[in-house]
C-alpha cells in the first residue's frame, strides 16, 4: 500500500503550521500594539481565511502565484520555479488556512494577559525582547499550543484550496484528503474507505492532543 499521501499530508501540514505558528504569534503581537482603527482593519484581514470557503483562498493563490500571474512570472524568470501544482503549493494554501487559528488564539492569550506583568518587566529594566520571549510567551503557551494543534488538525484535513492549487498527482501532490475524493470519484470505494480510516485515526489522535493541551494549568 502506498503511504505517500499520508507522508505528504504530514509534511505539508508540518511546514505550513510551523510557518503559521511563527507568523501568527508575531502578527498577534504586532496587531495588539496598533492604534484602534488600524487594529480592526488588520484583524479582519488576518482572520478572513477562517470564514472564506477554502476554494476562494485557492482562487486567490492561483491568481497571485500561477505562472501567468505577476509574481508567478517573476519567480519563473528568476528561479525557473513554478509553485502551482507542486506539493509546496499546498504548503502555501494550508499555511493561509491554518494561520487564523494560531493568530486568533495567540491574540486572545496576549489580550487576556496581565499587562501589569509586562509593565513590571519594563520598570525592572528588562528589554522588550526579553519580556516577549521570557515572560509573555511562556505564560501564554497553553493557549497558543492549543491553537496550533487545532491549526495543524485543520491543515491536515485541508481539501478545497489544496486540490485547486496542487491538484492530485499520485506520488507528487496527493494528500490524504485529496486521495479520498480521488478514489471515490474513480469508484475505488475500498481505497476511499482505507484513506477515510487513516483520516479518522489521525483526527482522533489530534483530538486527544487538543484536550491534553487545553487542560487548565495546575501551576500558575
Amino acid at each position: 500500500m502506498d503511504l505517500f499521501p499520508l507522508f505528504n499530508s504530514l509534511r505539508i501540514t508540518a511546514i505550513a503550521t510551523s510557518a503559521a505558528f511563527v507568523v501568527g504569534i508575531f502578527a498577534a503581537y504586532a496587531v495588539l500594539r496598533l492604534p484602534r482603527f488600524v487594529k480592526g482593519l488588520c484583524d479582519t484581514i488576518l482572520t478572513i481565511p477562517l470564514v472564506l470557503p477554502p476554494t476562494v483562498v485557492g482562487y486567490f493563490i492561483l491568481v497571485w502565484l500561477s505562472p501567468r500571474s505577476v509574481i508567478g512570472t517573476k519567480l519563473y524568470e528568476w528561479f525557473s520555479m513554478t509553485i502551482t501544482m507542486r506539493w509546496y503549493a499546498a504548503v502555501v494554501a494550508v499555511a493561509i488556512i491554518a494561520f487564523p487559528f494560531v493568530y486568533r488564539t495567540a491574540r486572545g492569550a496576549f489580550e487576556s494577559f496581565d499587562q501589569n506583568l509586562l509593565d513590571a518587566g519594563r520598570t525592572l529594566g528588562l528589554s522588550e525582547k526579553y519580556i516577549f520571549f521570557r515572560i509573555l510567551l511562556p505564560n501564554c503557551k497553553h493557549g497558543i499550543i492549543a491553537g496550533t494543534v487545532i491549526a495543524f488538525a485543520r491543515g491536515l484535513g485541508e481539501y478545497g484550496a489544496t486540490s485547486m492549487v496542487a491538484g492530485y498527482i499520485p506520488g507528487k501532490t496527493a494528500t490524504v484528503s485529496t486521495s479520498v475524493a480521488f478514489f471515490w470519484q474513480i469508484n475505488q470505494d475500498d481505497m476511499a474507505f482505507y484513506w477515510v480510516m487513516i483520516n479518522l485515526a489521525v483526527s482522533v489522535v489530534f483530538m486527544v492532543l487538543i484536550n491534553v493541551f487545553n487542560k487548565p494549568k495546575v501551576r500558575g
Partner: protein
Amino acid sequence: MLVCDIGKNLNGFSLDVNIAAKPGVTALMGASGSGKSMTLRCIAGISKPDRGRIELNGVVLFDYEKKINLPPQKRNTGFLFQDYALFPNMTVRQNIMTGAKHKTTHEKQSAAEELAETFHITPHLNKYPCQLSGGEKQRCALARILAGSPDILMLDEPFAALDSHLRWELELELAGLLKSFNKPILYVSHNRSEVYRLCDDIVIMNAGKNEVFGDKRTVFKNPATVQAARLTGCKNIAAIAITGTRISVPNWGIEFEAVKTPKDIHYVGIRSNYIIPASIAKEGDVIAAFPFEIVSEIEDTFTSILMVRKRGTNLPVIRWEMPKKERAALRGMPQELAFLREYVLFLR
C-alpha cells in the same frame, strides 16, 4: 529629589499634578480615581503624560517641550504593583534575578540570594509565586525591585492585596525598609493610619489634582480642604454661611463668632472623637455648644458611635464617637455638646 509637573487627559478625566518629593516617604492619598496610580505610572514611564516635565535626581525623565521621554527601562524606578506582578513562570530566585542589573548570571544569583536572606524568603527561593502567601509575595516583589538599586521607590497600595491580620507584621518590616532607603519614596494608600505611621509628607489628590501638600502632622491637624479632611478621617463636615463676623452652620443649627475669618472658607469640620459634653469643657475653649438628642447609637469594636443632632430639629446627624468606657460613664446624658475652638477645622 523628584520633581514632577505633568498633565494628562484620559477620556473625560484630566490629571494635573505638580509634586516634589525629597528623600523620605511621601504619601499620595486620594479617593479611587483621583489619579494617584496614574501619577506613579507616568513617573515610571509606563504611561505617557500629555505635557510637563519629570526630573529625578537631576536626570530629566520626561520633558514634553524638549521631547524627552526615557523608556521605563532607562528610568531606574522601583515600582511595587498592587498585586506585586511576580512572573508566574519563574521561581522566586529567577524573579529576583530579573531585577538585578549585574553582568553575569553568577553575580545576579548571589545578589538574589543575599536579598532573599534580607527578606526572609530563602526557604522559598525555588518555589513559584503561586506557592507563596501574600506576605511572601510582597517580600519577593520588594527584593526584586531592590535588586536593581532604584533611584526612587513607588509603592501602589502595598497592603491592598493582603489579609488584615498579615498587615501589621509586614508593615513593621516595611517601615524598617522605608527608613533605610535614603531616596524618595512615593506611597499610595487609602488608609490614613497606615499613612500616618509610615510617611513623612502627605500629598492629597482630588479629581486629578494635588490639593494639599505638607508635613503629615500639619495636614492631619489642619487639612485645609474638604477632601483632605475626609481622607484624614474627619466625619463631620458642613457648609457655612458668613454674615459679618458671625459664622453659621445651618446643617448643625449652630452659630458662632469668628475670631478671624480665613479666606475662601466654605466649610467647617469636626472630628467625631473631638466632640465633648459641654459640662466638662473649659468655658474659654468652647466655640459653640448646643442641646442635642440621640438619633441612633452604633456599637463599634472599641468605641461607641452616637449619631446626634440639635434637639428638637430634623437636621442631618453629627457623628460623635468615644471609647466604650466613656460611653458607659455617660449614663446621665449631658445636656449640651461642645465644639472646642482648637478642634474646629476651617476648610476650603
